[in-house]
């Protein structure tokens, strides 16, 4: 039993089920990120935890106590909303202390708490202003201040950074991470941005169509996606997924596909599993991250198994720190990540190094990873 337990939670609006038997157990101090495309049910799950919506079946427990019928304000949670939801008619100070006031805290204590939080977030000079007079980043801080001041058991964040511009988003991301490290609170964080998910979380729950697709550490999610959806959704640029044929030859297992010139290419797997061998002669989907498809100089020096192939370069996209190169494998456009100073030209031919240690394979029928 964890600090926050979501036990077989199902939520339906009328006939439409938006959460299917969700099971998550969050430990104290964990930073859980719920990630998924819009409409996947992640916000609903957050609302269910907050008590803003009721589960149709299943249980929500915080510190072992069943919360299903407990009013949001009694669950000892705090929430930061996407739009910040600052009360427009109150000053920043009033916004921050409103919750304390509602819980009957005396004024002097409220103020003390307010100053403490304001100092922490460096918004002391904004306390007398109205939300309308603040910039996006300032509003974001106030919204967090409003949550922090409550000193809740669980923090809930609902896409808190999505209304900020790119630079501010990165800054605030770091700030949130810092806060978590310093305060050690339990956080459930909803986002559709997989980079945010990767950078912030201690664990990620990838959601799709109301189902938890995978629940694991960022590393597990990134390197061992449990299915095609997770593989495709996490990572930017996303994982290259190409159709290949499995050929078992003694100890070796090879993936057979074609390059841009329709020549057959064979890629040997590193440490092929028994279950992979069973797919002998069958078509599967091979997953290679862009950083696993690179030029020879850029290849991972620590990798135990790199395959080299020749292929044509289709498109070059310099991105500053790296250069992305598009090439064709198995009639699929694949993106490789090259060094920034690569001298390749579109149409030229070159050697690609493929890191087979990080390659993953999926059964195209079930879309599940073949372990």
């Amino acid at each position, binding site marked *: 039993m964890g600090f926050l337990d979501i036990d077989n939670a199902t939520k339906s609006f009328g006939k439409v089920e938006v959460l299917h038997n969700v099971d998550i157990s969050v430990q104290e101090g964990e930073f859980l990120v719920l990630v998924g495309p819009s409409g996947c049910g992640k916000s609903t799950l957050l*609302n269910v935890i*907050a008590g*803003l919506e009721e589960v149709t079946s299943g249980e929500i427990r915080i510190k072992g106590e069943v919360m299903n019928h407990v*009013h*949001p*304000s*009694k669950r000892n*949670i*705090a*929430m930061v*909303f*996407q*739009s910040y*939801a*600052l*009360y*427009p*008619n*109150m000053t920043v100070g009033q916004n921050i202390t*409103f*919750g304390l006031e*509602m*819980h009957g805290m005396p004024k002097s204590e409220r103020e003390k708490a307010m100053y403490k939080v304001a100092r922490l977030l460096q918004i002391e000079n904004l306390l007398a202003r109205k939300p309308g007079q603040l910039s996006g980043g300032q509003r974001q801080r106030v919204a967090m201040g*409003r949550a922090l001041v*409550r000193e809740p058991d669980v923090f809930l964040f609902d896409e808190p950074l999505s209304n900020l511009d790119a630079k501010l988003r990165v800054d605030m991301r770091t700030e949130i991470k810092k806060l978590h490290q310093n305060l050690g609170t339990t956080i459930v964080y909803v986002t559709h941005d997989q980079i945010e998910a990767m950078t912030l979380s201690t664990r990620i729950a990838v959601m799709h169509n109301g189902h938890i697709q995978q629940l694991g550490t960022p590393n597990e999610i990134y390197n061992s996606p449990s299915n095609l959806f997770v593989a495709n959704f996490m990572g930017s640029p996303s994982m290259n997924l190409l159709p290949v044929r499995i050929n078992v030859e003694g100890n070796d297992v090879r993936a057979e596909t074609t390059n841009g010139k329709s020549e057959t290419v064979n890629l040997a797997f590193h440490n092929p599993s028994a279950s992979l061998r069973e797919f002998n002669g069958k078509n599967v989907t091979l997953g290679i991250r862009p950083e696993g498809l690179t030029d020879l100089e850029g290849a991972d020096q620590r990798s135990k198994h790199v395959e080299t192939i020749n292929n044509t370069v289709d498109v070059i996209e310099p991105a500053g720190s790296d250069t992305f190169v598009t090439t064709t494998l198995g009639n699929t456009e694949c993106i490789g990540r090259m060094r920034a100073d690569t001298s390749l030209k579109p149409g030229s031919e070159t050697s690609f190094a493929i890191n087979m240690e990080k390659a993953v394979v999926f059964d195209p029928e079930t879309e599940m990873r073949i372990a």
Partner: protein
Amino acid sequence: MAISSQDTAIRTGRITRTFIYLVLMLFALFYMLPLYVMVVNSLKPLSEITGGGMMALPQVWTIEPWLKAWSTAQVGVQATGLKPYFLNSILMVVPAVAISTMLGALNGYVLTKWRFKGDTLLFGFMLFACFIPFQIVLIPMAMVLGKLGISGTTAGLVLVHVVYGIGFTTLYFRNYYTVFPTELVRAAQIDGAGFFQIFWRILLPSSGPIAVVSVIWQFTNIWNDFIFGASFASGNGAPMTVALNNLVQSSTGVKEFNIHFAGAILAAFPTLLVYIVAGRYFVRGLMAGSVKG
């Protein structure tokens, strides 16, 4: 959203603009005409009016009709003018407007932020109530007021106006609150605010524009009501419109049109004032509420 920055992206030429101003002025004239007739005739002696010069400017300017209408014209057995009835109207209008607006705000709040099964249907029922012609309800209303024992009291009159006003006020506030961010309500819930606290502390302070619309609408309708005022107020508790009507509609006596018009403008003064003072918030309120869905 700010009205002051009317940054329409439409560009128009000089000739078009002259034309636009011309048309706008013409319409202003059209709207002013009846007021012109009223004002001009209220400032001349009766003989000039019955002499036929109803559209002309006064030959002799006089404010006597105004003084008479206010304080000495005959509206009943005593020549009291409209003065004493002014307070009656205020005593009726202020609570009626306040209560109906407050109920409308609460209803709008419930119907948008605390939705339940069948809420839209209920709202539909309330909205349809706006379309009841008042002549229909007169007799049954008298029965109910009689049963409640508040016929002939200001309280009864207030009740009547509240009943037939909440359809509109609910409509206004519901539309306004529909676009009010629900996240704010959720945040307040998590902060521990209850049903009324959320309403008082979060929604109501942001409801200024739509409250203006509701108040203007209700104030105008209630102030100008005649049929309920005449039927359900006691003689000396009668509102301004009843007094004005008595001034204007006397059947077999001498008709002093100049006093009638002066009285009419006096009786309309509060509503005109409300329009002029609150008018600039009016479009803003409409913008925020009733025309956006």
